[in-house]
């Protein structure tokens, strides 16, 4: 825990913002106000934030369908995200992308992705660009345990290895791809070994533990920045809600989520640790809680007040129009 006070506050604020953002979407989705598919990241905060605390704007990330947490951790504007999810012109993609396609290249956020396994090849390119342009930046790809099996992920890991790219592959193993268990779907059962089979050194860490993730990512990012090539991190964690909103989750264990929330929740754990170690005080965190609640509340109001796109918007931003 060699993080400065400011960094600890930032880590907590970011995790809390993600949690609040997602919990709010969970509630509002039920009212029918939010269009399309929404995949919530709640429960997985320590992973995205633990990794992203090691990055800055020149570093790129490729995200997944479950991308809100990565976006927030990478610095995307929360108002812009909320407006995007509501399909409004103030959205980060002007309402054209939606939850599954939020991107902000200025922040190095190359996009959530509706295609499972879409990210790994892309991130190799971002890493190559950073390498060739000499920015010192790295590139990080997030995949789920389902995506980990995609051929594109294998190809991405191999390419990063043979091109010695400044790339990091993060597997967020939440135990399920939709309803299917990762313990069934990953042949061999050991993602770290598989990554080694592609030439990537790797570790598996407790994904509820911000500090464990942060530490692993720090090492991987340093290795990448030093020009020593790509590496692999598995974060073991859980999603608190269904695969997408509306999923009745009958495939899950009884009280599975309840127990995790009560025992190893990333935010409570962080709170206890930093207070226990007298690094922060309860008040520090409580006031962040209050600020974040207001931030999210405002983002929803702003999103709802933002205008809908018009017929003109339909035809712009495509390379060729007919």
């Amino acid at each position: 825990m060699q993080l400065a006070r400011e960094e600890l506050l930032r880590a907590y604020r970011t995790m809390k913002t993600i949690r609040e953002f997602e919990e709010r979407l969970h509630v509002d989705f039920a009212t029918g106000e939010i269009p399309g598919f929404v995949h919530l990241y709640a429960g997985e905060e320590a992973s995205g934030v633990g990794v992203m605390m090691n990055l800055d704007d020149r570093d790129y990330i490729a995200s997944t369908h479950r991308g809100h947490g990565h976006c927030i951790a990478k610095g995307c504007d929360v108002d812009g995200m909320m407006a995007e999810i509501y399909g409004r012109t103030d959205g980060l993609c002007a309402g054209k992308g939606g939850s599954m396609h939020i991107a902000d290249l200025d922040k190095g956020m190359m996009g959530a992705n509706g295609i499972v396994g879409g990210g790994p090849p892309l991130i190799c390119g971002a890493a190559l660009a950073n390498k060739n342009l000499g920015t010192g930046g790295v590139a990080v790809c997030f995949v789920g345990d389902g995506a980990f099996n995609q051929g594109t992920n294998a190809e991405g890991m191999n390419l990063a290895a043979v091109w010695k790219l400044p790339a990091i592959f993060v597997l967020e193993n939440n135990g399920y791809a939709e309803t299917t268990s990762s313990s069934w779907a990953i042949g061999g059962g050991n993602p770290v070994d598989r990554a080694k089979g592609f030439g990537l050194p790797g570790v598996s860490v407790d994904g509820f533990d911000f500090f464990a993730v942060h530490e692993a990512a720090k090492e991987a990012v340093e290795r990448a920045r030093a020009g020593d090539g790509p590496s692999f991190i598995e974060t073991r964690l859980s999603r608190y809600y269904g695969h997408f909103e509306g999923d009745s989750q009958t495939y899950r264990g009884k009280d599975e989520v309840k127990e995790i929330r009560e025992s190893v929740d990333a935010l409570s754990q962080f709170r206890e640790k930093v207070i226990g170690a007298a690094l922060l005080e309860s008040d520090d965190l409580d006031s962040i809680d209050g600020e974040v609640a207001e931030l999210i509340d405002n983002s929803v109001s702003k999103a709802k007040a933002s205008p809908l796109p018009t017929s003109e918007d339909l035809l712009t931003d495509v390379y060729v129009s007919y």
Partner: protein
Amino acid sequence: MARKISYQQAINEALDQEMERDETVVIMGEDVAGGLGSPGERDAWGGVLGVTKGLQPKYGDDRVLDTPITESGFIGAAVGAATAGLRPVAELMFIDFMGVCFDQIFNQAAKFRYMFGGKAETPVVIRTMYGAGLRAAAQHSQCLYPVFTHIPGLKVVTPSNPYDAKGLLIQSIRDNDPVIFCEHKFLYTLEGDVPEEPYAIPFGEANITREGDDVTIVTLGRMVHIANEAADNLAKDGVNCEVVDLRTTSPMDTETIIESVENTGRLVVLDEANPRCSIATDVSALVAQEAFGSLKAPIKMVTAPHTPVPFSDALEDMYIPDANQVSDAVRLVMEA
């Protein structure tokens, strides 16, 4: 005996009856049962929208195969299994995911029979969900059946209603060639009369959903309903449209199209797909080549614009062709 069931139930029933009839029919796909290796319920989903639910408990794990998320892997496995004696029905969850497994479809399945000098049969069905309307955005809302239609060796099926869904799926399973079976996600809840017993609708036979002498509207899939709606409205103004539901785009029933245009002298093609190299252009070109002499007016195409599918409901509603656009097109060709 017919009763009212949904498009989705019709598909489930076709699968069930064919699996019952023929032991070599197997289904595979991501979460087609669901819950594999998980602590809770098995058959938890039955596919992302529940279309295959109930089949795993009835036919077991050897015939209802959940898969990892590796579409090249399992779509290719379905293709390979088809050449080796099974009749697999694989589910490609969204047609938009074709990009990660297209090789196995167009370079392998589609070409085996020809490339192997007629000695291979590949009776595989790939069921897949297509179309806009659910605010699913650019990577989960495409049509893409024109791409499959372009490829020789594939049969492409696009049922517009529960009756056709059942009959065409049964035909697809019994057929000895690879079939891309395109289910419009907006139609799953649509109900209609469907006989209980199994029946097969032959490929390449269009369905005239409405007869008329003034204008032919050729269309398919969800757009059939938009065409019918427009035709209803136009009928009030005394314009009689003939609506041709293609049912299958490959093979395509060129005769019915040509006959209808020979009778009406006017053609509107309504296609939810993007406009370039599409079914709209395909049908238009066919008529401009084969029934030119009967045409009294320019052909008019009504399609989605040449853009990805936008997310915002405001934009998506404008993106999808609607009955007003069809009526306008019909009026235009009537005035020409």
